[in-house]
């Protein structure tokens, strides 16, 4: 995993953001990346929720907004090239209170989740304020 807020996250076209709960910081003492368990479909099988960063930025939604109310969470970006390399597609799925909401069907491949976990970048690293 490369980059952090301190190292200067630079948003690229097609980035998607996802919150990472503290239970997925790996390793817990000095987190380098999220666990692959952070990149799975939802419990009922619905696609994984993400924030479409381009849409968010256009609407003035910041990483701090995405993390609001989620103390201790971090935020990562999955690059468009990572999604493409894994055959993943981020689809807009706007919700009432989440206009930049998107969805990605992560399927059941463990190796794909692992690849995403290894390739994503911190937008707001663990222990940092947005």
């Amino acid at each position, binding site marked *: 995993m490369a980059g952090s807020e301190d190292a200067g996250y630079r948003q690229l076209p097609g980035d998607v953001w996802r*919150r990472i*709960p503290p*239970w*997925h910081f*790996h*390793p*817990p003492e000095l987190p380098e990346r999220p*666990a*692959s*368990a*952070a990149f*799975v*479909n*939802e*419990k*009922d099988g619905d696609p*994984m*929720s993400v924030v479409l960063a381009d849409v968010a930025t256009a609407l003035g939604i910041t990483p701090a907004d995405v993390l609001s109310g*989620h103390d201790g*969470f971090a935020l990562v970006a999955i690059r468009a090239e990572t999604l493409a390399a894994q055959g993943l597609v981020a689809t807009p799925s706007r919700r009432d209170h989440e206009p930049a909401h998107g969805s990605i069907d992560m399927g059941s*491949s*463990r*190796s794909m989740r*692992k690849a995403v976990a290894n390739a994503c970048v911190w937008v707001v690293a663990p222990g940092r304020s947005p």
Partner: protein
Amino acid sequence: MMMLVDTNSEVADRYERVQPKIETPSMRTKDVRPAVRRQLAVLERLQPNWDSYGGAPVAAAAIEAVTQLFDQRPYVREPFIAPVASGGLLLEWTAGAVEIEAEFDRDGVVSVLWTGPDEQSEEHGRAAASLLGRALDAVAV
């Protein structure tokens, strides 16, 4: 004819030379089970929506499956254990260039991803249990 007994030190020395080394758990690296139990005790208290995306609490079947795994293989390195949104548990080890991930779903069924220097294997169900058994040899202590 009865032989005179050597001194204690000599007897001890002979015993040492002729007896095979007997390794007991207390002589080996620590049993990983207490550390695993501590991690599980924290994770089993997770509330619904612990991941902010509607994640389910960790299922009892997943806890039981992990507990059984370490009852069978207590002398392995301590894994990183993380909850999975479905109610399962992910176990992860790194040993040099080898990475092992074992995910127990909410029914306790395991899937395994084994990543070596030049190859990767992924299995589910019974085949995964077999792969996990072999993979744990890489993190045995």
